């Protein structure tokens, strides 16, 4: 997943957490980058009409941005579910975050052929818990 998609996903999750525009501080925390980096990337995404940014309020996804964020979150859900249920990784949240930049959408699509993902994915993703609320964790150690 490329950096732009990771930002779009973070904006989508931040909007859900904050129930409104995503603030720079929340995005910096979610992405583990500096506020300056967030502002720079949000500016680029705004130029590409994927995000609308309102001063002192924060960033909101446009319809096109929302669609891409949705796809990116779905890819992320596949990675988490694959790690948790196929490789049975206990620390699947942390590992999914570490791996998402190296796993391409097409690779995730193939992994999706062997996992059981709910139809409503990714709407069932819980941004506070950082995983799908319907994910059954086997509990087996890594």
């Amino acid at each position, binding site marked *: 997943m490329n950096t732009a998609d990771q930002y779009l996903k973070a904006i989508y999750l931040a909007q859900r957490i904050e129930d409104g525009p995503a603030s720079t501080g929340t995005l910096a925390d979610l992405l583990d980058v500096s506020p300056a980096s967030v502002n720079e990337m949000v500016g680029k995404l705004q130029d590409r009409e994927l995000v609308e940014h309102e001063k002192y309020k924060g960033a909101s996804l446009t319809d096109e941005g929302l669609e891409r964020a949705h796809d990116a979150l779905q890819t992320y859900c596949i990675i988490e579910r694959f790690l948790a249920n196929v490789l049975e990784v206990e620390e699947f949240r942390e590992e999914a975050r570490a791996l998402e930049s190296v796993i391409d959408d*097409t*690779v995730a699509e193939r992994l999706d052929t062997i996992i059981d993902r709910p139809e409503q994915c990714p709407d069932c993703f819980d941004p506070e818990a950082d995983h799908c609320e319907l994910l059954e964790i086997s509990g087996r150690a890594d």
Partner: protein
Amino acid sequence: MSLGQRVSSDNQLTRLLQIGVVLEEVVESRAALHIDSLPPEERAEFDAEVEELLVEAAAESADHRERLEALIDDLEAETVEYEEINALVDAQYGPPEDTDGVLYDQLANEETAYKFYDDLITAIEASDTEFAVDRDRLLETLSEIREEEKEGVQEVTEIMEHRA
């Protein structure tokens, strides 16, 4: 969240190689299922060329899997057994409608594998981490596999072109 394509630990590398093994197992399993899944009338038309392609693809995936497993052994980790992945593929498998569908799926398999190894090589090269497995051997193995995946893409594409 980790921004930027980089493999920065043995654990991360192990996980990516394990994903590579699973992708190969998926290819192997789907290729075998494709041969069995076609209805009799399609199977009669299922020429030797396509059947050979699938048999070769399954054998090549098994070979790639063994080479990845050797690297994973050096990282003192384990892989998911083929039988386990085969059962998961089987549970979700929807057979393609016809031979063209089989070829498209095979093309997607090869392209996905190529993209996976290409991204993995880039991410290893971008990192200065000293891994528990020899870096030269790691990159050499992955580059060889990537090359074979590239040839696989070309092979399927050629068959699709002259069947069109």
